[in-house]
């Protein structure tokens, strides 16, 4: 047993475990992600039509649509519904903007017990922080490419 290092891990065991692992149902997961993700987008489009009908246009229209969707994402998170949707929909409910709202609102609720400042406010971006960092970073990269083309 001695002398076990990171290099001589029990490869046999790990490959054996792989054969025992229950398979992830990729097809079913993709299908429900497509369905739910599509539905969220349809709701977004419907909201957009409604706002357009109410007289908004251009950037205002796009901004307001996002705001309504973010509000709905946060509301459903607070009501404890969004995590249930997410369990079945996977990427279908994570990728749309409602998923981003959920990833900000859920730690805020969770860490509220540790205080408003160091709990809720400071830990609000534990999950979404990564999205923001890489979102901004890839934005800069694309901007630079655009600048030189």
């Amino acid at each position, binding site marked *: 047993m001695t002398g076990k290092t990171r290099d001589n891990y029990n490869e046999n065991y790990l490959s054996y475990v792989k054969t025992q*692992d*229950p398979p992830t149902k990729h097809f079913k997961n993709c299908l429900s992600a497509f369905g739910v993700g599509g539905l969220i987008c349809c709701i977004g489009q419907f909201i957009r039509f409604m706002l357009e009908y109410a007289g908004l246009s251009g950037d205002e229209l796009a901004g307001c649509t996002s705001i309504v969707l973010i509000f709905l994402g946060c509301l459903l998170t607070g009501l404890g519904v969004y995590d249930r949707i997410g369990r079945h929909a996977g990427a279908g409910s994570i990728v749309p903007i409602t998923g981003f709202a959920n990833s900000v609102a*859920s730690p805020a609720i969770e860490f509220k017990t540790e205080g408003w400042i160091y709990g809720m406010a400071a830990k609000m971006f534990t*999950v979404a922080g990564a999205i923001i960092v890489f979102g901004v970073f890839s934005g800069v990269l694309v901007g630079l490419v655009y600048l030189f083309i």
Partner: protein
Amino acid sequence: MAKQQIKIGNTVFFKSAPRINSFAAICGSKEKEGIIGEYADVTLEDDMYGESTFEKAECKMLTNAISLAIEKGGYKEQDIDVLLSGDLLNQIISASFAARDYDFPFLGVYSACSTMSESIMLAAMLVNAGYVKRAVAATGSHFASAERQYRYPLEQGTTRPPQSQWTVTGAGGCTVCEGSKGIKITSATMGRVCDYGVTDVNNMGAAMAPAAADTIMQHFKDTGTQPTDYDMILTGDLGALGSRIVKDLTWEKGFDISSRHVDCGEIIYKVIEDEFQGGSGAGCSAVVLNSYVLSKMRAGLYKRILFAATGALLSTVSSGQGESIPCISHAVELEY
């Protein structure tokens, strides 16, 4: 032949046979639906247990399990010499905070999900050596507090992989006393840390199975027994996948435990939603042992049980740094 010596290999033998005199278990609403529902002393209607945070709820469950175990044994608080307890949260806060309500001394134990078997073993050692007359061993866990510490915020919409397990909301405790009535603790095997290089934190069953197999086989070797000598070989929270692996691992070495093996995590839930492989957490083995198993033992259904709970000794830091998961299992032999 083995009973003459006090220690063979990694197994210690208790000459005076400390007894489990009373036991108590508290479980959450999800656990109530399963097999242990009718055996648990208290089942929670609401997972907050009337408290403002999940951590407080976990602490309250543990406190009530300890108090109930003491009360059911017909003891008073001043009869207890020491409390051995631990839990899954950082710095074992639930156990420590539960202990502040009592006058007797407290020894904190951390062995992840195998805390129940480790604390029973240590309590039996203390009682057998004559240092204490009565000890309480208890542990518990809560789904929401474990989820927050090890995984994601509760309300976040993430999917759970099919290998994953569901942390049990519940607490269990028992009194370990000298005397001649109750369930005998005859021997205990101290576990070694086993690491077969599993790094997937969602696949605890596969990580912990080698530790369970190691301790169970060590116990057979040290005591000179065979799997068929036991009515039940009870592991803690390997889940369905881990149970298959532990049976394979022991079978490879010539011990066929398949007819005797039961896993607390595998039986605790009627898997309907997303418990997948079954229950996990310190509370899992604690609740099942202190409700269903010990009740049935007392009723005479099982005469001899090997209880080997398993624990994954990881932290969010170690798994974040890419470390594999070292696991441990301690075994306690119970007879009635």
